[in-house]
């Protein structure tokens, strides 16, 4: 029989040993990624930029669909609006491209309000196509804005990209040309955005609103009955996701420096790819998109020469994963090992029956 001192207090924890090790490894990895430009070539930096920005888009789509239960096929609306607002800030208002990225996030947040107003009137699959229609509307409207190049698009003015914040300093530091310095700068920003996104989403999921969010996803009626305002949670998640997606979109187009409505509002580039990343990695987890984006990048490097067969394969892989492993690769791994790197499940420890000891 166990005898415990009654003073042993109960406490609720989400940490596990795996998560503590993960945190330490993550800090080390981030440190390596920060100094990466000192010893990596330009191609690797560009690849890493692509991986990190896709990771940000995937995390926000995952927040929306995997945690919020809102399956959108219209995230390209916010990538495009973010990118166009950044271009607008630079070309029409003469702002530096770097602060104009914030303008991109803000613009996406603003257009997300009427988008949600319409899209929330549709349920389930109709919500999905509804968001797509709204993204199409934005694409067609932006194609009418002649000041930003209309249907054919436009480029960032050379003066703006040459004098971009901090590029001169980076160019001197690394002794590289201005264009390579720009790649390093956007890479660092992408790294910062990806880390901030993961920290913010993890913090949200561990907080009380995060618990409410999971409750709404798993059973909206039961969640309402214990006082969760499901409608407010939906708005909060939709707007957060739009803001983050808009920031990522603006950053992507600072690096590309050329925009057109068809590219910025592309359903394949900004939603289909993102969907496959999340599905293959594992929807409804933070680990999933991280694994997914790595696999996606490897597949792309391997198959990119095969053009349309590559997209065909991606579609088939998506179907197979959804049918046979709906929780994705990470789901398979946790099923086998029980490991959670970013645990959000609350466990009771301490007290007379300390389960953590068994």
């Amino acid at each position, binding site marked *: 029989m166990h005898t415990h001192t009654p003073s042993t207090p109960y406490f609720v924890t989400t940490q596990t040993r795996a998560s503590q090790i993960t945190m330490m490894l993550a800090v080390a990895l981030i440190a390596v990624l920060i100094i990466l430009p000192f010893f990596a070539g330009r191609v690797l930096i560009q690849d890493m930029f692509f991986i990190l920005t896709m990771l940000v888009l995937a995390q926000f789509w995952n927040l929306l669909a995997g945690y919020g239960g809102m*399956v959108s096929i219209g995230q390209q609306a916010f990538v495009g609006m973010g990118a166009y607002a950044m271009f607008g800030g630079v070309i029409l208002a003469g702002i530096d491209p770097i602060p104009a990225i914030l303008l991109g996030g803000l613009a996406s947040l603003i257009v997300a309000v009427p988008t949600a107003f319409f899209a929330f009137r549709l349920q389930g699959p*109709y919500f999905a*196509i509804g968001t797509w229609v709204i993204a199409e*509307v934005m694409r067609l409207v932006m*194609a009418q804005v002649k000041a930003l190049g209309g249907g054919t698009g436009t480029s960032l003015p050379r003066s703006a990209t040459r004098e971009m914040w901090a590029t001169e300093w980076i160019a001197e530091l690394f002794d590289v040309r201005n264009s390579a310095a720009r790649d390093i700068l956007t890479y660092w920003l992408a790294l910062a955005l990806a880390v901030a996104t993961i920290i913010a989403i993890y913090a949200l999921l561990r907080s009380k609103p995060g618990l409410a969010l999971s409750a709404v996803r798993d059973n909206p009626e039961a969640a309402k009955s214990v006082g969760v305002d499901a409608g407010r949670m939906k708005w909060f998640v939709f707007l957060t996701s739009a803001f983050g997606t808009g920031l990522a979109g603006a950053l992507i187009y600072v690096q590309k420096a050329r925009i057109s409505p068809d590219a910025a509002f592309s359903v394949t580039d900004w939603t289909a790819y993102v969907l496959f990343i999340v599905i293959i990695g594992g929807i409804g987890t933070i680990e999933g998109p991280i694994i997914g984006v790595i696999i996606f990048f490897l597949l792309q490097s391997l198959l990119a020469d095969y053009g349309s067969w590559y997209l*065909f394969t991606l*579609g088939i892989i998506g179907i197979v994963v959804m049918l046979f492993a*709906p929780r994705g690769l990470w789901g398979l791994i946790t099923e086998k090992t029980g490991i959670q790197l970013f645990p959000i499940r609350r466990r009771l420890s301490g007290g007379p029956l300390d389960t953590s000891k068994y």
Partner: protein
Amino acid sequence: MIWVDTLTQGILLGGLYALFAAGLSLVFGIMRLVNLAHGDFIVMAAYLILLLVTLLGLSPFLAAAIAAPLMYGVGWGLQKHLLNRTLGNDILPPLLVTFGLSIALQNALLEAFSADSQRLPTGAISTASIDMGGLTLGVLPLLTFGSAVAVIVGLNQLFYRTELGRAFRATSDDATTASLMGIRPSNIFAKATAIAMLVVTLAALYLGMRSNFDPSIGPARLIYAFQAVIIGGLGSLWGTLVGGIIIGLAQTVGAAINPEWQILAGHVAFLIVLMLRPRGLFPRAVD
């Protein structure tokens, strides 16, 4: 008079959109499934008809008659072996599986037929027209509209006058109880998708005769179909026809004002209806 002409063209164009939408409406009504690859199946059927026309030298109508049973089989197999596995309370699997299917289908068509625009050879019918009191109507648009009305009458007859229709309605209302009455929901669903593919073949015939098509145009057809279904109200086939006409009218009027506004005008009409009547004009199903 130009305006009367524009409006008439718009209404007739709505017939084509109603044909796009009828299959979507049917499948959703019975199993609450939205096939995101619906538009790509229309394009696939158009290529199938084109293939039969080129290989066998048939007229498009005859080729469509041969393509129809093939598409019926495709629909049956698709539902029985793939989509039935995705049905359930979770909305993610059907959405993501059909989205994956859409991407795969588009790219398979691209690989097989290249990105070149194609058109079904129509002969004299594409330019034939009827003069009605100063108003000149194309035979092909009239035929499309007539076919759309016939399809909707036919589907309604099927739904409310036949044993299969009764099974459709019973499974739609309560699949579990229906299966107690000796109905096998998985087979009923397979038949529903197969019938939807017959309508898809007809839609593909008119799409291919009236305009150019290439592997990338599927998603836009899905969007028009979707808008027609939502405007009409879920579960109402006549509503779907009205929805198609509204989209057709909006697009034609938009294009008459500025050719660049054609598609945008259709989307705006859809959003206005969604704002004023979120459940569509003739809602029936409660979802």
